[in-house]
């Protein structure tokens, strides 16, 4: 049906009015170009944000005790709820869906006190008491040594896993600190491991200032008794953070005699909601991009349809003649559709490649800035899913064929007697 002769006819017709063909095609070209570049940028920003969130479990959940805000069972409001090891046992025994529970205690806050020393070097650190398995909640890489193990906890060993910044500050990056004694508030701990956080940007510095010690050791040497500062946990697969959080809150409220309606007494925060919020944001952005892109493309398609109508009006005589010498209606329709499809797909693919080229150039210029480990720029390599791009062009071609139907009908209905009448 579409042979070389038909192509010859089409290219001849399109090349006849080069400027107009170019202008018509540029509508489609821009539509695809803008869609591709916008999609690439959207993906770049999404990638950048995702990278900045690397290192957080996407479904982590945090719970802590606050002050009560309601009187309950004869107890007055304003009572401080403090969690302890018994709460840990109760949660593990009674709540379903807890994947990994990390009861935690912390000394100081980020960049507060210069608590940690080796020899004559002193630096600040965020020291915590933890159980083995916390690395499942805060993903990290341990290149040297190991993380805490159950024996450390059982024997209340004075051991510490230190972040890479602490390592660098106290020992220098090149020396091996494993087995060395460091002082945390004048108490000696043996370094058993160094970790690298999986975070990027600002968070990386903070996360590499952490020092992990066994929970039991921490509670004893720093006089915390049985106290737990807060819980970090990840639910088992298939359980939602929200649901598990509600179950644990209900249990803790019962154990600490808190009014079940008291929303303030037990605080909680989960990353799942945050991630869902961010995911929704990007779904919204993507929907926006597609809306703008498709609208731009539609404008291009209407433009093509319109120009084809004008072209057919101009070529009335030609179509009249073609009919008089034997062009059947289907010959005429085929010719119009082929002309439109050639114009649109040619412009579409040029737009696609120009868009990909632009993204490549953008990546080339931004990569030195965005790919640095401590980069705060929320942008990574802008990419476009080729399947999406090809699908967009296929949809575009179909749309233009539909748009070509109206001009084709016009051409088909040209009455040769009228078209050929001498002026």
């Amino acid at each position, binding site marked *: 049906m579409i042979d*070389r*002769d038909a192509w*010859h*006819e089409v290219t*001849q*017709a399109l*090349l*006849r009015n080069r400027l107009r063909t170019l202008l018509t095609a540029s509508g489609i070209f821009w539509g695809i170009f803008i869609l591709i570049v916008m999609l690439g940028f959207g993906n770049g920003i999404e990638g950048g944000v995702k990278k900045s969130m690397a290192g957080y479990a996407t479904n982590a959940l945090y719970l802590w005790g606050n002050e009560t805000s309601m009187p309950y069972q004869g107890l007055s409001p304003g009572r401080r709820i403090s969690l302890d090891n018994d709460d840990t046992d109760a949660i593990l025994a009674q709540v379903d869906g807890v994947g990994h529970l990390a009861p935690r205690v912390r000394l100081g806050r980020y960049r507060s006190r210069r608590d940690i020393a080796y020899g004559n070097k002193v630096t600040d650190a965020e020291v915590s008491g933890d159980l083995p398995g916390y690395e499942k909640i805060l993903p990290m890489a341990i290149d040297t040594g190991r993380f805490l193990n159950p024996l450390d906890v059982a024997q209340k060993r004075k051991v510490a896993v230190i972040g890479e910044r602490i390592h660098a500050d106290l020992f220098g990056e090149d020396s091996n600190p494993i087995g060395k004694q460091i002082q945390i508030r004048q108490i000696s701990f043996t370094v058993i491991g160094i970790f690298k956080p999986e975070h990027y940007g600002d968070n990386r510095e903070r996360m590499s200032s952490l020092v992990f010690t066994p929970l039991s050791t921490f509670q004893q040497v720093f006089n915390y008794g049985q106290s737990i500062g807060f819980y970090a946990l990840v639910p088992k697969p298939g359980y939602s953070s929200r649901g598990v959080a509600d179950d644990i809150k209900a249990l803790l409220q019962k154990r600490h005699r808190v009014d079940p309606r008291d929303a303030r007494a037990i605080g909680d925060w989960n990353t799942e909601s945050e991630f869902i919020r961010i995911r929704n944001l990007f779904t919204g952005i993507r929907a926006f991009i597609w809306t703008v892109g498709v609208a731009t493309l539609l404008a291009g398609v209407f433009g093509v349809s319109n120009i084809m109508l004008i072209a057919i009006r101009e070529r009335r*005589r*030609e179509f*009249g*003649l*073609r*009919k*008089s*010498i*034997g*062009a*059947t*209606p*289907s*010959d005429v329709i085929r010719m119009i559709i082929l002309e439109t499809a050639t114009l649109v797909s040619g412009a579409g693919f040029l737009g696609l490649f120009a868009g990909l080229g632009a993204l490549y150039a953008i990546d080339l210029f931004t990569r030195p800035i965005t790919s640095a480990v401590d980069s705060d720029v929320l942008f990574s390599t802008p990419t476009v899913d080729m399947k999406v791009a090809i699908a967009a062009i296929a949809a575009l071609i179909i749309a233009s064929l539909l748009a070509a139907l109206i001009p084709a009908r016009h051409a088909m209905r040209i009455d*040769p*007697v009228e078209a*050929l009448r*001498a*002026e």
Partner: protein
Amino acid sequence: MIKLSNICKTYLMGDNPVRALDAISLTVDKGEFVAVQGSSGSGKSTLLNIMGILDSFDSGSYTLDDTPMDNLTQRQAAQYRNRFIGFVFQSFNLIHHKSAVENVALPLYYQGIKRRKRNAIAMEYLERVGLAARADHKPSELSGGQSQRVAIARALITQPSLLLADEPTGALDTQTSEQILDLFKGVNADGMTVVVVTHETEVAEQTRRVINLRDGQLLSDQRL
């Protein structure tokens, strides 16, 4: 060859119906050279368009080469036009973006003949009208007489049994008109039926049968 009986055709001019052809009956035999004359509005062009299956008629019957030409689909009409009929128009109607040889070859495109072959055939016909040297020229580079000769070559290339010409010399000077008429005489001598619509008596005089129309009716029909 052509058998028209009781052909009527009315069309609307604004809101007024105009009777273009009023019960025309006419027979043209194979190999005739006929001129159709009449003042403007006499229906001569309508008659030619009906003969060429470009136009429909309201009543009556038309057989071409013993084939009835009523109730044809558009597709059938196009195919009959392609195979049986060659058209020559007053304003040549060449396609501007095609060269002379491509214009001549166009009817063969609709027969599905490959480009190389049809252009070769088109060259033969251009040679016949004396324009082989101008084969690659665009219509804008041709004179009126040359353009009409290209158009005639295009009309002849399918070897039609009927050649229809609507004022073929209307846009040409006397000397070029002569050349065009000579071409018509030549193909007629080879046995092709030729019908020419003209208002020029000098043209009509060179044919062998003159039909006069007035107000859609046959006024006279004389063989010379």
